[in-house]
């Protein structure tokens, strides 16, 4: 503070002394790093070797009698793999690229083994100090190979689970357009309810993956929250910028329904809006922007969902059944509803534009299934699920603030349609989720 005060006269020039103060901490830190790294063993001597840690991130079974474990050194120091076992029985194996792993390096342990479909297997890896790490696979299934046939199967699953339900939801567009203001609020808050459920679901799922498949070294649980928050605030910023730019450029192309403009306008003075005209413009542009953001958010979410479905098939955790697909389809139909709901009171949206939104929301499921099924990576899955969660919470915020502004003096929690809609939205998700 003293330095700043001293420099107030020449506001933008920084004195040498100030620079010195800015640099000193870095010099001290640098000196500490040099000292600690060079004198390790002198300053802080430890006779105890740090405990090794290995994460078996995934186990693949292949038809040619092979089990492949993907392992990563998640411990504090270099480790050497000494042995592999299946169900606690030692088997000959190979480790590629080599048995010694530096910190966070990974390797493939290949075990020739005649395995049986559907049976559980515990894969163990022993390090050179005799510590054994294991991973249980509940039901062995041959890993999908990246063939055209398998890729089209995943594409078909993605279409069923992602694109078709979202498109089905979009069909409700004309129906929602004809709703009264209260029922419209009901559907908007229903959407918010659906999305909150999806967001929480994504967070819980990524947490589960983080706990089961990722080593504590990744701090994956904090990563989830971090990624979700950063996504949320980034998207909030992006959407604000989009709305501002769009409202500057375009003329109002939305019919402004009287039904709720009368509620909102008298209240403008009390809101922190700069002028009534800009707010009016925002009102006009916002529904489509919100819908677009919802599509993007749901797209990110569905990408994560696709990853999870592909990975579940890869890891033999689920056998794909028609019932499962049907469950996902019903579950995701509500996502299409979420996209169209905010646009209900705007001018008629061209079908092509609706289709684009539907593809943005549903298409990533296919991509996710491919990546999850062929190149499963738990850390990528966790990150994408968290991004999806953050995106969804941004959408919920957008819907909330939209309803707040259009709902006038009544506020959000004063309207029973909103409360019922929100609760009903979550309930729908819960019930359809039981099918999955």
């Amino acid at each position: 503070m003293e330095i700043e005060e001293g420099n107030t006269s020449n506001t933008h020039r920084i004195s040498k002394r100030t620079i010195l103060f800015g640099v000193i901490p870095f010099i001290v830190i640098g000196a500490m790093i040099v000292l600690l790294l060079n004198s390790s063993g002198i300053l802080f001597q430890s006779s105890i070797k740090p405990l090794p840690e290995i994460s078996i991130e995934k186990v693949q079974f292949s038809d040619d009698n092979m089990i492949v474990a993907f392992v990563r050194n998640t411990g504090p120091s270099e480790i050497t793999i000494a042995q592999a076992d299946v169900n606690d029985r030692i088997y000959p194996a190979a480790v590629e690229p080599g048995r010694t792993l530096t910190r966070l390096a990974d390797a493939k342990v290949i075990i020739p083994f005649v395995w049986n479909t559907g049976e559980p297997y515990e894969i163990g890896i022993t390090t050179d100090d005799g510590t054994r790490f294991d991973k249980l696979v509940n039901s062995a299934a041959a890993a999908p190979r990246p063939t055209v046939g398998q890729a089209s199967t995943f594409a078909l699953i993605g279409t069923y689970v992602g694109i078709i339900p979202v498109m089905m939801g979009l069909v409700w567009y004309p129906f929602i357009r004809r709703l009264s203001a209260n029922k419209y609020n009901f559907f908007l808050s229903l959407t918010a309810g659906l999305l909150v459920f999806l967001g929480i679901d994504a967070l819980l799922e990524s947490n589960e993956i983080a706990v089961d498949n990722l080593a504590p070294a990744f701090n994956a649980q904090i990563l989830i929250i971090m990624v979700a928050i950063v996504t949320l605030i980034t998207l909030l910023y992006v959407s604000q910028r989009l709305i501002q730019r769009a409202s500057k450029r375009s003329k109002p192309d939305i019919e402004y329904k009287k039904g709720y403009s009368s509620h909102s306008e008298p209240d403008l003075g009390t809101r922190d809006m700069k002028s009534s005209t800009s707010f009016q413009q925002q009102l006009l542009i916002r529904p489509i922007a919100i819908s677009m953001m919802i599509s993007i958010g749901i797209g990110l979410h569905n990408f994560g969902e696709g990853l999870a479905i592909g990975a579940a098939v890869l890891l033999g955790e689920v056998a794909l059944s028609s019932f499962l697909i049907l469950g996902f389809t019903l579950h995701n139909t509500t996502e299409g509803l979420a996209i169209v709901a905010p646009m209900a009171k705007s001018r008629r949206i061209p079908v092509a534009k609706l289709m684009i939104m539907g593809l943005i929301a549903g298409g990533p499921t296919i991509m996710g299934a491919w990546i999850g099924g062929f190149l499963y990576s738990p850390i990528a899955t966790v990150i994408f699920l968290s991004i999806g969660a953050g995106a969804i919470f941004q959408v919920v915020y957008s819907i909330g603030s939209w309803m707040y502004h259009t709902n006038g003096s009544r506020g959000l929690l004063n309207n029973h349609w909103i409360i019922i809609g929100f609760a009903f939205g979550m309930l729908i998700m819960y019930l359809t989720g039981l099918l999955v």
Partner: protein
Amino acid sequence: MSYPRIAVLFGIAFSIIIFAISTALYSRSSLSDQNSSKLDTFGGHTPGYPTLQTTGDVLDPTSLVINPKTAVVDPMKYLREFNYGKLSASSNGTVIRDFTMIASDQQTKEVSPGVFYNVWTFNGTVPGPTLRATEGDTIRITLINNGSKFHSIHFHGIHPSEMDGVFEGIAPGGKFTYQFTAEPFGVFPYHCHMQPLEEHITHGLYGALIIDPKKPRASADEMVMLMNGYDTDFDTENNFYTVNGIPYYYMHHPIQIDKNRLIRIYLLNMLEFDPLNNFHLHANMFNFYKTGTKLIPDEYTDIVTMNQAERGILEFSYKYPGKYMFHAHKTEFAEKGWTGLFLVKEGTNQSINENLNVTSIRNITNYSTTDFNKTTDLVPTGGVN
């Protein structure tokens, strides 16, 4: 309208990210395909199992030979090495056998290829040396504790209370001489009896004592087999099971024996944690002398099951040449290292075994004492008081 543009931009950005991530993941998973300079073959020991080639490292205790410099024991040497002690005679004519045992507990040795474990040892190996005497001899064993903890030697057999190695531990740097008369004849384990007993035994402080009857047993190709295990991750479950210290050792180093030659195995079980262990011989039957305390076999069988510290003598000979397996018929143990092979050869009357195999006490003095005293070299540091 700017929204389709946003959508397109979003699509492009998203695709780029996905492409980058998939490329990174894919290139990583196919890393090994790019480097094919060095190829090792592995697998394929078992019918129906594929034999594969790898550019990486092979992990296979059933075929990889442990580095003799870091190995916890040389199982081939241990197999037929009997230590008869330094001989002298007392005033009344009794044979006195002097042995020196050095306990240590700070060495880390290779117990299975690539696996290093802090073993506690008598004379630097697990199992400790096989001591051998004749019924009625006076046995004097000087224990030098070169370790960091109290240790002792508790012998099974008949001896006075103060020679039992239970109530008086030998302090680090300390020394004690156990003295007793070798009786009765049979096979006896010895082990450290300090608390916690489990810890001292599972780390490797045990071995075999053989007391021969005054009238020697019939001439035979004799060997010691001590069954043990290692709990290398301290979860009170064994990670490795062995006979004579190193898992699968006799799979890649089959024990060579002659057809129709009498084989005598002194078998002991010192396995910790697991309540029982056993020995099963393939394609043959053996006479089993429980505890080795009788000259008449107790059983004619192909499997014998033992609790910890139980032991006995097996006698058999092979009728046909070839490879024969022997292993624990607790298959878990067998598949975690307790498996070996006999290689039965068409008999030559003067086989190498004939020279090594010493059943008579008359001509062994030079051979055993010199060899035995070398064991002090195994202890790296001085400080023996």
